[in-house]
């Protein structure tokens, strides 16, 4: 772990892992994301040349992924969760920071293959992705068999046609597509949405990956199928020893996956992880005000509770997310945070250990911090709260 500035990131990321999972603390992470930035220049080619404006899609994020681990990235659209996921598995190059796969910096291995212990193609094989929309992820003019034999032909050249076929059948059985001989001959349009997603999962697993990035992999499925798909993912995790980075906008699904797998939930806001920890801690005892907002926004099925909640005002001062091209100074959440004080507008909090098992990027998790003596924001007092809140809807 080497970063130039000794932020608490390294410490906390490790600490979180210890708290959150049963991993031994000295376990080597298979994937470690260290202080990663992904910045984009907005606009067309001319604007880009003329401006030094940047969209900080991912801004100084660190986390570790262990063997058989699950990290669920949760956040609103535009919070950078997909960019972070893609960067973590080496599909996108970070503008700053490093991604290490089993200790090997993956971009080093691409740029200086001679010095690298592992080939870049080997690292790429070890990290696979499942996309959100299974209908577009499969070539509609090819049979399932052809779709699944591509990766085998590329990476497992030692297999003959017969062995390849057997392998395909075996993997179709793994993803519950019985009888495999029948499904192998079908085209994607002859499969249901759930079946397509299982083919996509099977295709990823064929590469025998260590890490799978599942980008909203269950969002396109019917509600009644989601639990089934998540169960399948969890079962296969045991069989294949795969770790997952799971991206979701839905805390309920995140909770299910992370809880069943003993993983962690990481809440993202404007390119930063603002809270990370085990699911029950995140849901029952959220520390970061933004986590509370997400929890408030997740609908409950209990009609009494839901009726009562619908009358409540949202625990934010503004409903809309600020422009990511021009993020607020200090803590990025301070413009919407009901707890924000003066200091939050100037200073940006790191991930701190909280009283509970999670880490949160909020000064409120520190017992003695300038925050507690800092002046409340002018518009945060009760009278103006309502006006602010309703005006906020219109912004």
């Amino acid at each position, binding site marked *: 772990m080497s970063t130039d500035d000794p932020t608490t990131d390294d410490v906390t990321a490790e600490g979180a892992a210890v708290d959150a999972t049963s991993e031994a603390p000295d376990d080597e992470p298979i994937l470690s994301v260290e202080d990663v930035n992904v910045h984009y220049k907005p606009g067309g080619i001319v604007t880009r040349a003329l401006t030094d404006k940047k969209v900080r899609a991912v801004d100084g994020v660190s986390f570790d992924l262990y063997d058989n681990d699950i990290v669920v990235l949760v956040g609103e659209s535009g919070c950078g969760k997909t960019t972070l996921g893609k960067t973590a598995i080496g599909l996108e190059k970070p503008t700053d920071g490093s991604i290490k796969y089993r200790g090997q910096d993956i971009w080093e291995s691409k740029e200086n293959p001679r010095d690298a212990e592992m080939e870049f193609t080997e690292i790429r094989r070890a990290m696979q992705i499942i996309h959100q929309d299974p209908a577009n992820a499969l070539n509609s003019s090819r049979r399932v068999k052809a779709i699944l034999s591509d990766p085998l032909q590329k990476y497992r050249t030692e297999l003959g046609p017969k062995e390849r076929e057997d392998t395909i059948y075996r993997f179709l059985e793994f993803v519950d597509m019985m009888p495999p001989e029948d499904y192998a001959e079908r085209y994607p349009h002859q499969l249901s949405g759930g079946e397509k997603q299982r083919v996509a999962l099977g295709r990823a697993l064929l590469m025998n990956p260590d890490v799978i990035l599942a980008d909203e992999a269950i969002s396109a499925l019917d*509600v009644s199928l989601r639990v089934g798909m998540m169960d399948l993912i969890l079962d296969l995790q045991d069989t294949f020893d795969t770790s997952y980075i799971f991206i979701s906008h839905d805390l309920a*699904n995140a909770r299910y996956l992370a809880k069943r797998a003993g993983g962690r939930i990481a809440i993202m806001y404007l390119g930063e992880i603002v809270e990370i920890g085990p699911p029950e801690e995140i849901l029952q005892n959220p520390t970061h005000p933004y986590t509370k907002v997400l929890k408030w926004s*997740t609908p409950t*099925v209990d009609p009494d509770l839901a009726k009562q909640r619908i009358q409540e005002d949202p625990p934010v001062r503004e409903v809309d997310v600020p422009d990511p091209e021009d993020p607020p100074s200090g803590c990025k959440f301070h413009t919407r945070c009901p707890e924000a004080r003066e200091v939050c507008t100037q200073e940006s909090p790191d991930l701190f250990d909280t009283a509970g098992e999670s880490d949160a990027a909020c000064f409120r998790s520190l017992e003695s911090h300038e925050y507690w003596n800092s002046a409340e924001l002018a518009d945060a007092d009760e009278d103006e709260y309502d006006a602010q809140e309703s005006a906020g809807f219109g912004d």
Partner: protein
Amino acid sequence: MAIGQPNQSTEEETTEEDDPADDIVMSVDDARVQFGMSRGQAWVLNDVSLDVRREEILAVVGESGSGKSMFAAALMDAVEDPGHLSGDVTYYPREEESDDAPSADQIGSYDTVGDDSVDVLDMTDSELKNFRWEEVSMVFQGAMNSFNPTMKIKGHFHETIQAHNAVLEERMEHVRDLFEALHLDPDRVMNSYPHELSGGMKQRALIALALVLEPEVLVMDEPTAALDLLMQRSIISMLRELRDEFELTIVFITHDLPLVAGLSDRIGVMYAFEFIEVGNTRSLLKDAAHPYTRALLRSVPSIDSNIDEMQPIEGARPDPVNIPTGCSFHPRCPVADDRCEIEDPDLVSVDDDHSAACFYTDQARNELEYTLDHGVTED
């Protein structure tokens, strides 16, 4: 043109006799939609009967391919070719006792007979055109992308108002009220092009557009599906306020059961192109009677429920060309027996204002257990 008195003899009515819910705004009787496919006739709405009560929020919940969007289309006679809709859809305008009833001056655009009821499926094209904006209006999923990108939001409102020969100033005054209820800044939004607004703002502007001619009924098909959670929650809260302020009836179509738990007054659950359970929200969610509804509640991940109880529904959803005989859920149902394979159960009352189409509701309630609130999020 109009059919007779509100049909008191349908199953829906009998189950709701003891309820003060006689003020019906729309009733659907034996609505059936068929598509001719190369494999045979596909039934995508299977003899559906349901009444929509005035000023209620009715949630129609079902998975994809359960016929819920087809039900919405049937309400407005908007089933597209080659689909064929048969049955009856009747609309009952508000009675004209109060002078300022908004519908009073708009009813004249098509025939009204005696009891004021209107047969929607019998309308001519021009009557339908007026009916669809002035009496029943619709907001579609992802409809926020249906704004013309080269036209300011204001232009969309003007166009709609003028196409319906309404008084521009009066309507725009109404729009200001709507914008206020939807927490939109009228001046800023009106003068913006669609790309200048966020998804949530566009969707809210679209809801305002749908309400510009003061319809009685607003049909919404997954109106919040493409939005972020917080915006979704905010719009849900606003819809309740809108209903109260503008005396609206809202039909809310969704696959997301938790979304409507706090919003709706009643829920109708669709499976295999028909309603298999209809009831007031509290009773239906707390003590669902139909095995499908119970299985659905067990399969929906929520932040409150007990994770160990969650399980997917076994089996595959039915094929519209080949709907199972008898009860359409029987191949997947844990309590089904021989009778369910032959006989199709009707909706029968199981509780106050709560009916289910199942012979074995007691067994279903015993065998499929679920807990709604596991105490996880009790603050």
